[in-house]
């Protein structure tokens, strides 16, 4: 038998299996659309996958530029995707995320959280010292309206609820905070410099405004305004800065897998923390909209709420909130 005749015979025998390919394609489509509890169906898909792989290999060499090959490539890809599509249940995925994955990320990020907090505190101290010594420098950090209000002996937060309702205020604040938090993480892409800038700038502004307000005898009032929501809000800023710093370090000091791979691993791993950060910021935004500007809440209540919420954050991030119950 000549080589050409042999190839012809092989190709013909392959084409005679087209019916099986169509059945495999229909099964892969059906299983991709929905769930099945039929183990036999899943087993048949695995058999289909082997059959398609075998036939595709033959067709790639025997009939490379044919629609048979195109059809088999498509069907094989579909069967591969259907077979390798992992099971996903929202409830268990969320539980695993908060019970195992986020606490794992926080443990991994511990040194980054420490250094981000140090940078933030140093920047805040720097801002405070600058404005304490050179009050005119407040113009670099605050708007003219804010400066004028404080110089009149008032905080800009006074009467805030008369201007904007709590619900609107909450949504505006939490949206802004989430965007800043996400930016601190994404800016890690600039080899960590963007994250450093965002942490530093926010720290400088906080310190500078505090120094300016204390200078005008309004420090207690500002503390009273900030304490309920600020404990978590500032902590989350440091957490997202830590995630950004991890991304930056992955680019500066990539592992054996290369810079892109290292960036991908760090971004994917630390990105999980952002979900917790966003949720915590929603709570902080609600506190800032409903509690902080409302004069009916006394300082003790504010401190209790702020510290309590901060402990809730610690429990959430350490995984103790969803700890496995021992049998």
């Amino acid at each position, binding site marked *: 038998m000549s080589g050409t005749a042999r190839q*012809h015979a092989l*190709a*013909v025998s*392959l*084409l*005679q299996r*087209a*019916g099986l*390919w*169509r059945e495999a394609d229909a099964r892969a489509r059906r299983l991709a659309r929905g769930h099945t509890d039929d183990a036999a169906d899943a087993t048949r898909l695995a058999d289909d*996958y*082997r059959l398609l*792989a*075998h036939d*595709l*290999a*033959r067709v*790639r*060499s*025997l*009939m490379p530029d*044919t*629609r*048979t090959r*195109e*059809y*088999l*490539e*498509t069907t*094989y*890809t579909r069967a*591969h*995707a259907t077979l*390798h*599509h*992992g099971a*996903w249940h929202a409830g268990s*995925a969320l539980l695993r995320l908060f019970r195992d994955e986020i606490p794992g990320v926080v443990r991994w990020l511990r040194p980054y959280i420490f250094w981000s907090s140090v940078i933030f505190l140093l920047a805040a101290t720097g801002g405070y010292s600058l404005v304490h010594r050179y009050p005119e420098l407040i113009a670099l950090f605050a708007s003219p309206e804010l400066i004028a209000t404080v110089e009149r002996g008032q905080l800009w937060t006074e009467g805030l609820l008369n*201007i904007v*309702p709590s*619900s*609107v205020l909450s*949504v505006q604040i939490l949206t802004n905070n989430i*965007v800043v938090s*996400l*930016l601190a*993480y*994404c*800016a890690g*892409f600039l080899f960590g410099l963007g994250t450093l800038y965002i942490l530093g700038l926010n720290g400088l502004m906080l310190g500078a405004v505090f120094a300016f307000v204390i200078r005008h005898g309004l420090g207690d009032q500002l503390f009273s305004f900030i304490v309920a929501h600020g404990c978590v809000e500032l902590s989350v800023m440091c957490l997202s800065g830590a995630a950004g710093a991890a*991304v930056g370090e992955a680019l500066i000091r990539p592992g054996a897998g290369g810079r*892109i791979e290292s*960036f*991908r691993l760090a*971004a*994917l791993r630390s*990105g*999980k923390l*952002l*979900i917790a950060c966003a949720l915590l910021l929603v709570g902080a935004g609600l506190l800032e909209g409903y509690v902080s500007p409302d004069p009916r809440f006394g300082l003790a209540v504010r401190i209790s709420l702020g510290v309590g919420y901060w402990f809730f954050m610690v429990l959430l991030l350490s995984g103790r909130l969803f700890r496995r119950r021992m049998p």
Partner: protein
Amino acid sequence: MSSVPPGLRVESVTGIDVSLPVAGPGARALGFLADWHIRVILALGWFCVAALIYNGRLRLVSPQTNGASWFGVVVAPALAIYFLYHYVVELAMHGRTPGKRMAGVRIVSRDGGTPGAGALLVRNVFRLIDSLPFYGVGLIATMVTREHVRIGDMAAGTLLVYERADALAPILLQSAGAAARLDPVGAELVAELLERWSTLTAPARTQLARQVLARYKLDITGADEATLHARLAGLLQPAQGRGP
């Protein structure tokens, strides 16, 4: 040795790699523009309909300054539609969006599978960087990277691949007679010509039929269009007395 088409090669336990053709900046931009229009229309649509219902008359502005219920019913959902569109739709449609469907592309992870919720989140969070300025960073990234990915894709380990259009099913050579007469490529040629017969102009299909039949040294002198069609169909039928 079998050749694998260019694109994302995904290793398989069978030893036969899956090949996924990677989408370029053009297809990506087309998908994005389509999605952008869809989400703008959806967000504006919500805003207008909710505002009309809220006001109870033909008026699109809030009846009072900074109304909380106005914000909650009209403004916030419209903003949520605009900003969460990509993440929610990609998650619900397993890496696809209506715009990506129009462009014939979908998001896959590097193992060729559907990306997870975390990867899609990271991919969309990095839009903050990719969208600066006017998506310039993202566009340049897709043009200069080998796999045409933006920074969000690099971070999430995803890329856009072309959805394979449903290829035409191969012809089924059930008879040994037909197999003996036709080589597989020829059989495909005949089957395809017959499938497209009605869409071709008469002179074109007559000419093509003559060329195909001449290849098999069949007598076509004086044959009209119907005869040519019958001869072509006959090639795919079992030969008389030689069937299995």
